[in-house]
């Protein structure tokens, strides 16, 4: 009985705190949202961050039961561990990343019926507009190579589609990769960056477990996944592999320094192994 009252109290507090945190963040950005921000790369007001951390601390043990949806971003192990043998770039370079910043915006989770198959730019269904923009460093990830973006309250259902956009940050770049490339005796520091905006309309997450099922008593998570091998190719894949044919490799950047590249034609954005329809904005 006491436990039930305690949980009811926590529930009431959490329900009231989450819109407050979202409202503070929304006020800063000129928009309203019910998001609890988990990672913003210092682009959130200190007071909002305090509120967010306080809410997370209070609700940590309760959020799992609150019917929430948590969004992650990942560059997989290629972002955290780099390209190492046998997974070198298609032209044989080893890459070590010190920073991979990506900025995501217009993030929306969808319940679609029939399921969206990533066969076009428009998704039809019940939309849960999340928030953005969020700039994250994909090398600063957890043990599952994921960076937590935010958590929102979500109605029960299966969130089987996700749309989002890769957009330029305040510095004008949507994706920046910094690190060191090595091949034989050569060691090349590099900064690669793209100013492109790319919209993604993605089907259901595909991976070891099926994701996106929110119930009254349990939360769920979804993941934006950037496949870096679609940018650099893979030496352990056949030269004729579609991915290797499209990928740049590292040779075009082997002079080192700062290079800009286009995301047009590259399909970095996925949901796990699930595919996305990609449109240049």
């Amino acid at each position, binding site marked *: 009985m006491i436990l039930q009252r305690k949980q009811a109290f926590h529930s009431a507090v959490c329900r009231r705190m989450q819109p407050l945190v979202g409202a503070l963040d929304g006020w800063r950005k000129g928009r309203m949202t019910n998001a609890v921000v988990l990672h913003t790369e210092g682009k959130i007001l200190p007071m909002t961050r305090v509120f967010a951390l306080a809410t997370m601390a209070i609700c940590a043990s309760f959020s799992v039961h609150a019917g929430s949806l948590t969004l992650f971003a990942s560059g997989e192990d290629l972002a955290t561990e780099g390209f190492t043998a046998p997974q070198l770039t298609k032209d044989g370079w080893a890459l070590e990343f010190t920073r991979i910043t990506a900025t995501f915006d217009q993030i929306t989770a969808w319940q679609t019926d*029939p*399921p969206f*198959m*990533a*066969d076009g730019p428009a998704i039809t269904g019940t939309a849960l507009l999340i928030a953005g923009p969020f700039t994250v460093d994909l090398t600063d990830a957890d043990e599952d190579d994921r960076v937590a973006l935010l958590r929102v309250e979500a109605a029960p259902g*299966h969130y089987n589609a996700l749309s989002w956009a890769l957009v330029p940050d305040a510095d004008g770049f949507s994706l920046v990769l910094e690190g060191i490339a090595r091949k034989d005796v050569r060691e090349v520091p590099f900064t690669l960056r793209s100013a492109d905006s790319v919209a993604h309309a993605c*089907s*259901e997450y*595909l991976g070891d477990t*099926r994701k996106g*099922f929110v119930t009254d008593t349990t939360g769920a998570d979804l993941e934006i996944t950037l*496949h870096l*091998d*679609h940018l650099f190719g893979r030496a352990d894949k056949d030269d004729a592999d*579609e*991915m290797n*044919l*499209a*990928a740049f490799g590292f040779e075009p950047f082997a002079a080192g320094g700062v290079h800009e590249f286009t995301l047009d*034609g*590259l*399909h970095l954005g996925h949901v*796990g*192994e*699930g*595919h996305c*329809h*990609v449109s240049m904005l």
Partner: protein
Amino acid sequence: MSQCFRRVAATAFAAGLCAPLSAFSHAALIEAETAQAIRLHALYDTGEPMSHAQVIIYAPDDPSTPWGQGVTDRDGRLEFVLGNEPGRWSFQVRQSGHGAMVHMEIGADAPVIMTASSAQGWGQRLLMVALVAWGALGTAAFVYRRKGGRNASA
């Protein structure tokens, strides 16, 4: 005394091992019944089959928990029989970082043919997964029971 005890223990252990074997040998029951089979065919847009791809099946009554799984053959095919639960069955096909999820509605009538594809443009391999009602598996029921043996289901 000690050796005697060891012999007794060894004999008892051997008897324990043998007892279940003899029970199994007396009771083989194989039943086969008519059922609608589904054939899954997974391939890339190049026509190359998704050989030895992992297939995970999800039933309508518990879509977050795998109902069954299998592996496609070298031609990218897998045949199986689903349960009786009506509704949307989902099939996840994955191989070497590529994947697709396809769905099939099972009702009172025979399953409809569904073809799903995903991915677009260069840099991604288009995956095509076809699910078709393939006909019936088995036309009769067979029971094999060793004479004088016990029924394994008893």
